[in-house]
């Protein structure tokens, strides 16, 4: 009883001394190397600024195709001279290919960007049959999006086969690159931070952290190349082509790699550079880890940006703090149990608020990304999150045991407990690596949030006849409750003051009677049909009955594709 009290008093005393000394040494460092610190601060500020500048450009979700000309499924009388694709946001095309009816691809290289529309020149006169216009573009969040539009010349033929096979070799490379980059950032830079700030002069784990950071220094640029390959849809053998690297650098992941390289450099310098500056470099490195993660990725691209980017930043910093400290701590306890007590003490003091921030930001980001609980099981993204949560559960159990059961006796120097603690930290490391593996898997799964945005895109058609024309869009463009918006014009683009507009949706092959709804005029020049339910997905015939005058009605119709929910 007495010894316990004495120990806790001693602990408090040590804590006081420790913090006094750290403040003093910080001040000393600042005065002595004020100039260097100033440069460092500028460097740090630049990183933050870059991240912020990059931010507005990435404030979008995955791009979605809104309209295509020729429209999907259209039958044309003759070969078009150009194609156009309009997206929900500005995009840059990566690969545009026309697959002809015999399956031979024709690369389309001449295109112009016009706001959100990509206008593509058709280099050849196309023969009869069904063609596939295959597109691959990159959206502002740095992820490539692809799709295809089928159209026919003369009459439809059997659609040519377009292979959209997954390149598993490239996927494995991307995944491995990500995991190694995480190791470099979290274990390497995080380790450097733990050594500089928590280890109290001990250098245990220094070699491990340096190795991890070198690993990251190799993985970061390679990941950039892999990203370029993925964006272009090119195989691994094209890695040496400059365009691949330019493409990779042009994506938002380019920022992540650049900032990650800065973070790795800062971390390395804090270990091998002058000891006096170690703490500042390590701190800047830790902040750069957060900035690197916040610069790209699904979570950073989510709305609201002012919330998600700082949360990704904090989450990244928290992971680096926690995961980074594990190896130096474990090695210190194993090799120099005598000196490791203070390290262990500082870590256990700091870890609670860090874990609180990690959990809070993680939960908030998960809620933003997953949206509906059903998506946890229903999407690949959600299932990965469940796996990560399961791993986290084990990790937290271990960490809590370490913190509340083992830390105090280990600090007091009980060797058996210290051995247990080392083993436990080793297992924690393995779980952390597994979590990195799961998190790297998210690279390939769009979050439910982005899927929902894509699903909410309207289905739109343009109907053009000599008597009248109309733009009809059904929002969202999938089966279920929808609303329709209609703009009518005369056949020569003049205003058409219709007395009444009726929307008739029919799907003769489904055995469903035509759905007929009068449209209302909300006063903004459009006609609307609300409270409409489209029961099944597929190709519907949309007819508009436009009452031009008391005794004259114009009926126009076209096909519209309704997606499955």
């Amino acid at each position, binding site marked *: 009883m007495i010894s316990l009290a004495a120990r806790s008093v001693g602990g408090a005393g040590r804590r006081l001394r420790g913090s006094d000394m750290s403040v003093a040494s910080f001040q000393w460092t600042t005065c002595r190397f004020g100039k260097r610190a100033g440069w460092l601060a500028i460097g740090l500020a630049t990183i933050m600024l870059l991240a912020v500048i990059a931010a507005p450009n990435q404030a979008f979700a995955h791009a979605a195709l809104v309209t295509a000309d020729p429209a999907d499924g259209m039958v044309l009388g003759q070969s078009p001279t150009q194609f156009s694709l309009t997206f929900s946001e500005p995009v840059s095309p990566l690969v545009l290919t026309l697959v002809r009816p015999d399956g031979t691809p024709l690369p389309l290289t001449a295109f112009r960007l016009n706001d959100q529309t990509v206008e593509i020149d058709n280099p050849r006169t196309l023969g009869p049959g069904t063609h596939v216009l295959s597109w691959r573009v990159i959206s502002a969040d740095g992820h490539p999006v692809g799709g295809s539009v089928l159209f026919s010349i003369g009459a439809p033929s059997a659609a040519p086969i377009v292979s959209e096979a997954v390149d598993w070799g490239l996927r494995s490379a991307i995944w491995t690159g990500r995991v190694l980059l995480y190791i470099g950032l979290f274990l390497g830079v995080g380790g450097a931070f733990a050594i500089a700030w928590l280890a109290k002069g001990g250098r245990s784990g220094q070699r491990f952290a340096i190795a991890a950071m070198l690993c990251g220094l190799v993985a970061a640029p390679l990941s950039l190349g892999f990203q370029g390959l993925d964006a272009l849809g090119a195989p691994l053998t094209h890695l040496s082509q400059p365009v691949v690297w330019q493409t990779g650098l042009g994506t938002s992941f380019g920022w992540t790699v650049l900032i990650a390289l800065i973070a790795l450099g800062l971390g390395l310098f804090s270990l091998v550079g002058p000891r006096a500056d170690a703490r500042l470099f390590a701190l800047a490195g830790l902040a750069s880890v957060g900035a690197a993660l916040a610069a790209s990725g699904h979570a950073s691209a989510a709305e609201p940006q002012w919330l998600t980017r700082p949360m990704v930043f904090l989450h990244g910093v928290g992971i680096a703090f926690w995961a980074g400290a594990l190896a130096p701590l474990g090695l210190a306890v194993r090799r120099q149990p005598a000196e490791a007590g203070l390290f262990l003490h500082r870590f256990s003091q700091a870890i609670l608020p860090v874990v609180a921030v990690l959990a809070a930001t993680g939960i908030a980001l998960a809620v933003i990304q997953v949206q509906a609980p059903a998506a946890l099981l229903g999407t690949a993204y959600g299932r990965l999150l469940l796996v990560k949560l399961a791993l986290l559960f084990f990790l937290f159990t271990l960490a809590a045991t370490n913190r509340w059961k083992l830390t105090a006796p280990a600090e007091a120097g009980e060797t058996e407990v210290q051995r247990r603690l080392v083993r436990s930290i080793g297992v924690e490391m393995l779980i952390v690596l597994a979590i990195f593996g799961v998190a790297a898997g998210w690279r390939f799964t769009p979050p439910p949030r982005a899927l929902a945005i894509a699903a909410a895109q309207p289905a739109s058609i343009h109907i053009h006849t000599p008597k009248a024309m109309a733009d009809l869009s059904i929002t969202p463009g999938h089966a279920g409750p929808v609303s329709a918006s209609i703009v009518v014009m005369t056949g020569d683009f003049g205003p058409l003051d219709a007395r009444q507009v009726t929307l008739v949706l029919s799907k003769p092959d489904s055995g469903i009677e035509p759905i007929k709804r009068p449209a209302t005029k909300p006063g903004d020049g459009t006609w609307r049909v609300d409270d409409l339910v489209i029961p099944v997905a597929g190709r519907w015939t949309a007819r508009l009955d436009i*009452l031009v005058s*008391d*005794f*004259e*009605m114009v*009926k126009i119709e076209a096909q519209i594709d309704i997606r499955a929910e």
Partner: protein
Amino acid sequence: MNKYLLSGCALALGTGTAFAHITLETQEAAVGSTYKAILRVPHGCEGKATTAVRVQIPEGVISVKPMPKPGWTLQVKKGKYEKSYQLYGEAVTSGVREVDWSGGSLPDEFYDEFVFRGTLAADLPAGQTLYFPVVQECDGAADRWIEIPAAGQDEDALEYPAPGIKLLPKK
């Protein structure tokens, strides 16, 4: 032979649909003759009583005179024809373009007829169908019998076909 068969079929279908649609009793007339149009109104709109019947007079039907109907207010709208027509040696350039019977009440379960007469101009194209678009108004609703089949379209495919007559060659 085929032609007769076809018109026979058309007639059979015509009588079949006559119960549902507003139609003209006399379904053919020679160009250059006087035509007595009897509009047959078999029911109201969606079960509601008919309160007005309005007919648009097509181009080429001149000198129109509607028959008054007890309980209904009769109005005509006059306007210019697209061209000048010869009637008994005189040039006619304007006349009735729309006939309205309104203010009455014809319950859904009753049947009634609305009558007018006019002259079919001699230069109307014989062999074609001439349509008289009709708007049937009820209390808060309206059925517009104004659909005219496009070239090659089957008249039976229309939901609200305009009543029409087949123009026969001049006698």
